[in-house]
């Protein structure tokens, strides 16, 4: 239509920035520790590395209260349905961070027991390499995810505003 710009105007972009800022500043992770990576995830939250600096020290045991699922470790065939259920229980908006080689690709265990990458089960927003990734790597992944959210639109995983 003539006279109406398809570009988002001042109001929308400002609201979007505000909402995205709010979302990244207190992103609570669900504690989904599976294997070795879970220990490094705990290490990231503990004294030396202090994830609280990014408002993320509250690892929630209940998926209902969590925004980010850090899949920390190898996902076995038996664990995959549980993982999916926990993901489904999380409220929108939600993000998934795949931590380590096993969660991302199956890692060194290309065998009958492991899911070859957690992206076969849930949509993944950020992959963190390493076996296990150190706290600095994990924080880098988390901050990259923050940046991704800041640069993106306000939407949930189904694409609805």
């Amino acid at each position, binding site marked *: 239509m003539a006279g109406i710009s398809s570009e988002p105007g001042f109001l929308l972009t400002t609201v979007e920035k505000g909402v995205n800022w709010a979302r990244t500043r207190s992103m609570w992770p669900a504690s989904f520790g*599976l294997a070795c990576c879970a220990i*490094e995830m705990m290490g990231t939250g*503990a004294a030396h590395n202090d994830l609280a600096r990014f408002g993320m020290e509250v690892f929630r045991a209940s998926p209902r209260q969590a925004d980010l699922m850090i899949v920390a470790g190898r996902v076995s065939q038996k664990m995959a349905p549980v993982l999916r259920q926990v993901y489904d229980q999380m409220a929108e908006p939600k993000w998934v961070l795949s931590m380590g080689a096993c969660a991302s690709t199956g890692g060194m265990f290309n065998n009958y027991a492991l899911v070859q990458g957690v992206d076969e089960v849930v949509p993944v927003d950020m992959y963190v390499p390493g076996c296990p990734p150190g706290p600095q790597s994990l924080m880098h992944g988390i901050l990259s995810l923050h940046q991704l959210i800041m640069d993106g639109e306000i939407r949930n995983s189904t694409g609805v505003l």
Partner: protein
Amino acid sequence: MSDTTDLTADVPAEEVEEASVSVAEERRAAHDVWVSGTEERMPFATGTDEGAQEMLPSDIDPALAIQEGIEVDDDYVDEDDDHDFGDRQIINMGPQHPSTHGVLRLQMELEGETVVRVKPIIGYLHTGMEKTAETLNYAQGATNVTRMDYLSPFHNELAYSLTVEQLLGIDVPPRANAIRVLMTELNRVSSHLLWAATQGMDIGALSMMIYGWRERETCLDFFEKTTGLRMNHNYIRVGGVAADLPDGWRDDVASLITTVSRGVDEYEQLLNENPIFLDRTMGVGVITPKEVEQFGITGPMARASGVNWDLRKEMPYCGIDQYEFDVPLGKYGDVHDRYEVRIAEIRESLKIVEQVMDSMPSGDYRTEDRKVTPPPRKRIDESMEALIHHFKLFTEGIAVPPGTAYQAVEGPRGEIGCMMISKGGSRPWRMHWRAPSFAAVQALPVMMTDSLVADVVASLASADPVLGDVDR
């Protein structure tokens, strides 16, 4: 119509329909299974029901109940109990629960606040490592096993290397042995520190979590400096260790000992007279020496029950018998004794580390056997034999003669044993591990039955199970 065989051909159609409906209804009544993604999305109340959280119907078929997971099938409890089934409730704890130390699932039958039965369900972290080991050669094998019990990677590597060395019939130089003892004992310290942190957190002493990690990081820093990695080091290898200790390691270890000792003193100040901590640990999760023997429990759990069994004393490896240390023992076999035994073990391990520091021999850090260790790069240019050795090692791997070997080391959780069968060649034909956490998880029903729900977490944490070790 499809060309598959119709097995119900001679049964009248209505009967088939009726039978399948009734079975389906029965199943649904017993346990509302909802596998995500396979059916249309249900409302939250149904969708999140993992079954088994409702009261048991009184007239349910026991076999079906066990199959559907709403009845705990456990042979530890006598069957002649006179409990009223109407008051019982089944609670599933895990596999996604922060206090299960990984992905253990506990199925608990409760009567009010009392745990009537417990059944640990394992396998959520089964990685098929023992099978994977059959495809990896002996140089690659340590990479695999170090990820089993991920809190004591050095002990896994040590058990693996010692087993292969036993098959090969080689000895490693004294310096390699001393480095192995140094690293494994520091690993015991870091593992026990993590245990102290999580045990504290699980029973509500949240600051223990932060304190324990603070000291553990100093251990990890030294590991990183030596091996290049904070965890899963692949440092202890067949024939010795991967690299010599870094420059200035004595200063690092000395400051580590000071920091950790000071930290452990602080934990004791924090916990030893803390009435809540004492209330929650004393007399909880008791295991008798007889049960220790029956369940094959080893390590700090066995020693907390007064069973004097430490592989470092009974079947010494890597020359650990030349160092002086005590084996701390408990009296009552409860959670509090396990706490005291582990804290004492941290101090004993530091004592060993100090002695290793003082008596570190010089020399090679890996064997000079050219069938196991590749020659130095420079020798390859000079010697045809060295070139052949190098080529053979990196194309075929270490050739291990046929045979069967078992070697165990005293890990932070108990006896970590590696059983290996070789049929010759560069890969093990079969490998099996004896996991200390497996025995500990097996004994959870003994510790938890007839205790309160709140004590379940304390007992579980005190067993210090690592699920990577249990499931492998």
